[in-house]
């Protein structure tokens, strides 16, 4: 079955005698027991809920995994993956990571004696050098947020496995439609489902998908013990959003490529970061391991003031954190989504202060380009009138 069909062809309500097409929302904390000393399939919604089960199963299928788990946020999913580690263990992570992940690594798990080493995962030899016998987890995004670096996931899996570590890929910028890290050798794939999976900016959620049963058991244990599972209503909204994933992304991706080309041709734009452009250093690898370049892209202007003015003059592009929605958005990662990256790491990973990240939505392509065009013109003219 092709992906578009898989998105809508699943059992929305297993065993339900009314045969609804849309999954019922089991908005309940507790389930009745058949007998005093035994439970049925469900007993307490923190531990399991029928609405959540449908979503978790569907997501596992879409990522070509066997078990899926939904969490109250993408960060709760990442926190759960770090829960597989114990004091003395190490993580090897790519240095271009979402700011919240960096904060988790530097403010929470370090207090428990877990050390994180950062590398530029585009250079596998750096990974080989930094990996140690204590490394239990290799953690990367691809394409990364916000610099859109493309990481060779097959290669990362080989390096991790040669050293007895697990590879976890944050697939939020791609969604299961464009990239399936488990097929490329990853052990754990996770998503901020707040992004493309939801697509409508109405749910905060996270997802973990794995293939290995033992690993699934550990993740389930933590999800239940730490109480981080997604609520039934949000599961329903996600199930609904996922049905249009391909429709949305096809359109968003078309728009993104047109915008990337437009920006690349504007002399005021210093550099465009988008692996869908032929001249991008990640272009070939992205074509090799994914089915598209997605709809998140970044660019620099050479001036923080000009970048800021573009963001503020754009009308279709709202200034917000997050990405992946039907609405276009614009942000400056250095002061917004990545503000929690420690300054020394910001410098080390060379996050340009004038970097602008845009997430392209489903608005009309011409409207979006015209909007960026006027925003750039205004930004440049207000800049030159000031000097």
């Amino acid at each position: 079955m092709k992906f578009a069909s898989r998105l809508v062809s699943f059992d929305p309500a297993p065993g339900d005698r009314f045969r609804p097409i849309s999954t019922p929302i089991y908005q309940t904390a507790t389930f009745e027991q058949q007998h005093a000393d035994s439970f049925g399939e469900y007993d307490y919604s923190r531990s399991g809920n029928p609405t959540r089960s449908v979503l978790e199963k569907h997501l596992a299928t879409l990522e070509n995994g066997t078990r899926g788990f939904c969490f109250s946020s993408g960060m709760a999913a990442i926190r759960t993956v770090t829960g597989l580690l114990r004091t003395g263990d190490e993580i090897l992570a790519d240095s271009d990571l979402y700011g919240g992940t960096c904060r988790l690594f530097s403010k929470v798990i370090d207090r428990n004696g877990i050390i994180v080493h950062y590398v530029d995962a585009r250079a596998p030899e750096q990974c080989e050098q930094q990996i140690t016998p204590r490394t239990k987890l290799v953690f990367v995004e691809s394409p990364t947020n916000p610099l859109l670096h493309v990481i060779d996931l097959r290669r990362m899996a080989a390096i991790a496995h040669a050293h007895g570590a697990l590879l976890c890929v944050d697939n939020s910028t791609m969604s299961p439609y464009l990239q399936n890290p488990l097929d490329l050798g990853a052990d754990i794939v996770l998503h901020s489902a707040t992004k493309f999976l939801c697509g409508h900016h109405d749910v905060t959620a996270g997802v973990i998908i794995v293939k290995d049963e033992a690993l699934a058991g550990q993740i389930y244990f933590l999800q239940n013990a730490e109480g981080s599972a997604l609520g039934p209503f949000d599961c329903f909204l996600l199930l609904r959003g996922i049905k249009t994933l391909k429709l949305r992304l096809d359109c968003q991706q078309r728009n993104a490529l047109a915008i990337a080309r437009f920006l690349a041709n504007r002399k005021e734009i210093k550099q465009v970061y988008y692996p869908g452009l032929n001249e991008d250093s990640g272009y070939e690898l992205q074509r090799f391991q994914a089915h598209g370049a997605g709809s998140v892209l970044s660019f620099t202007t050479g001036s923080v003031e000009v970048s800021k003015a573009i963001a503020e003059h754009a009308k279709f592009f709202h200034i917000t954190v997050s990405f992946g929605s039907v609405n276009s958005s614009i942000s400056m990662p250095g002061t917004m989504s990545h503000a929690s990256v420690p300054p020394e790491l910001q410098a080390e990973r060379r996050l340009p202060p004038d970097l602008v990240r845009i997430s392209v939505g489903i608005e009309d392509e011409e409207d979006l380009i015209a909007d960026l065009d006027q925003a750039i013109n205004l930004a440049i003219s207000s800049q030159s009138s000031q000097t």
Partner: protein
Amino acid sequence: MSTYDPQDSTVAIHGGRSLDCHANSILFPLYQTSTFVHDAVGVDKGFSYSRVSNPTVDALEKVIGALEGTPPAVCFRTGMAAITTLLLSVLKSGDHAVLSDVVYGGTMRLFREVLDDLGITASFVDTSDATNVEAAITPATRIIFIETPGNPTLKLTDIEAVARIAKRHSILLAVDNTFLTPILQKPLELGADISVLSTTKYIDGHNATVGGSIATRDDKLLERIRLIRKTIGTTQAPFEAWLTLQGIKTLPARLRLHCESASVIARWLENHPGVERVYYPGLDSFPQKALAEKQQRAPGAIIAFELKAGVETATRAMNSVKLCLRAESLGGLETLITHPSSTTHADLDPKLRRGLGISDGLIRLSVGLEAPEDIIADLEQAFAAADSSNASEEVTHEIR
């Protein structure tokens, strides 16, 4: 026992209202959004991303804080997410905690199977005797975590006495106040630093959501908990917060009825010839009745009891109820009946379980808002059915 505070009803109904709610809706709107638009780069109207904060969740935090007598509380996806976030906020590798031996099984599991891997240790002691708390404190102890009344035998811990010990050692005292809520017991007024709630129970009151909250007057700690919550992403969802916000409005009224019914049922149980023992802080026979009167505003609505005839009969009685529902959890409108040794406390070592007074014949009742006469009639027929079906084991399974 001191009386209910009539102000609490007003606070429960109006405490979450916000004057700047721009459409003047009586019910606070459900902000089902993950993201908020910024006015300019770096300039927002107080909300940016719902994992960090959300107006609907804020409204719930305001009302819980107002009831607890603290600044706005912090709300979480579940009660266990609240406890996980609290402990990750205050404990690091090498630290130690002292806990009641009767804390909720999930809290115990968190220490034994999650935090243990991170080099965090804990002592579980009988905190009903405060000297045990003092004796368990080590130089590495950072927090004392008690639950009173304890689950399921309702053993009480003297909050003021433990608070004095905590202060003397400069250690935080957290109280899991889920069984009573701030309507019936205000831990911060009794000297505790932190009040923890599973809002799944009485606060929501309708079994519609799972959630948790933490309240404290310590601004630095509050800030720390919010930082860790946004970092590990355990924030309550807007829809669950909205439902809880409606549920909490009737909390004081519901609890009054819950407690009235529970007192009637507890007395009936105590006088029943087939009942060996009843645990309920409102009964004269309850060993810590004086302490209950000192620190609680009412005895609560959880009752535990044992049948004289033992385990098999208890199980049969539970399988014979028709109105009461067999389910974990508590605090909802429906009366729930639970067999702790095979459900809520099944993970515990049997020896340890018996040490905590949880015999295999113990039954826990969360008294709901049905007519108490109907609940009593249901229990009566269930006890009778359990007795008469002694011979034929199969019959009981056909009932439901």
